């Protein structure tokens, strides 16, 4: 596929300030970033040449609207991996999003990356354990259904079934769901509840490390989260 020119349309002094302007991208991408080897980055002061040798493309959903976003890279060492790349591009469902033109220096190794979850319409979010139970039931019917050679199961079915079995944590999903629902009144959203249920963290520190968005309300939710983890521990199956 064609590489996008990195120079942008106006002749900004790319060499000196190391400003990079990235052109508009395909709408399919959601914050997918190009990785380049550091060696090529040192080649010259020009931003565009840095990106010639790599094999992956750079695309940012945020630029779908055709506007340009400029990024500042730290001048040191030309290490692109740690350069300022804006990751806040994604929105599930391919809707247009406003470019974050003023985001400066978010890193590829962004630890504070928050969960972005958009529910498609007519969809309900399920925790892994809930899906596991449903899929297990279908698996049991599958042997009967498969007697008919015309019945076809999706390729992903088996892989996903294995995936859910691997993560199996709780005795049953209803008890886990009941416990986690209590977090809703403390401002924890559905996506975060789902993550906590799926990850099954052992300590509150782990929760905050993995779901940094919860830190904002730490004073409010720390106690409840601690309680919930304790309750979840009780309904965990011993595996």
């Amino acid at each position: 596929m064609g590489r996008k020119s990195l120079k942008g349309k106006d002749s900004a002094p790319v060499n000196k300030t190391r400003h990079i302007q990235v052109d508009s991208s395909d709408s399919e991408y959601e914050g997918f970033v190009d990785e380049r080897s550091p060696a090529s980055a040192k080649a010259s002061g020009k931003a565009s040449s840095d990106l010639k040798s790599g094999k992956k493309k750079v695309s940012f959903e945020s630029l779908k609207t055709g506007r340009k976003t400029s990024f500042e890279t730290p001048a040191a060492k030309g290490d692109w991996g740690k350069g300022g790349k804006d990751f806040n591009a994604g929105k599930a469902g391919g809707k247009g999003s406003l470019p974050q033109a003023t985001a400066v220096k978010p890193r590829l190794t962004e630890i504070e990356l928050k969960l972005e979850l958009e529910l498609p319409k007519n969809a309900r979010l399920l925790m892994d354990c809930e899906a596991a139970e449903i899929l297990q039931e279908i698996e049991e019917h599958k042997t009967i259904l498969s007697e008919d050679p015309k019945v076809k199961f999706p390729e992903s079915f088996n892989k996903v079934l294995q995936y859910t079995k691997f993560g199996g944590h709780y005795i049953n999903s209803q008890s886990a769901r009941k416990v986690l629902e209590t977090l809703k009144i403390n401002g924890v959203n559905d996506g975060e509840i789902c993550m906590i249920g799926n990850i099954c963290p052992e300590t509150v520190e782990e929760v905050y490390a993995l779901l940094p968005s919860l830190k904002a309300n730490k004073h409010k939710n720390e106690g409840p989260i601690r309680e919930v983890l304790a309750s979840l521990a009780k309904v965990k199956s011993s595996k």
Partner: protein
Amino acid sequence: MVFFEVEMQWNVLISPNELDAKGLLLQKAIIVHLMEEFANRKASKEHGYYVAVTSLNSVGEGKVRGLTGDVLFPVTFSCITQKPAKGEILQGSVEKILKHGIFLKSGPMESIFLPEKTMKDYRYVAGENPVFLNDKHSKLEKDTIVRFKVLGFKWLEYDRQFQLLATLAGDFLGPI
């Protein structure tokens, strides 16, 4: 990857030779065709990977296609899908190790890339079976289970699958 239970409406085409049986067989034919279509479509950008049909909710009035005699039924059904989400925590196993990163697989996703730069203190160790090692002698090699965070993902229309970019930057991430 998060799971969704989604209600969707699709059209199922039934050919005339399946029609002239009794009502029960017709329903079976509709289900079989629906499952086939579901399996063939594999995934969508909006809902993610199609995992399984859970229930047939309603079947609308069939419309006969003039020339062929086939009948088109609008069908509403519920199904389970699985889709990656940015910023989420996942587990996967190491598939392939390269100098600039590792390929992982997780559930239905076979195209997850973990760039070397996100792997904190791990260094590439070349060899017949290359691995990534860190100072604490923790090793990333084939089939190691790794917990990672999703940095971003891409929908590949042609292949009808997602491609994920992962990171190990952060506490509690890494091999398990």
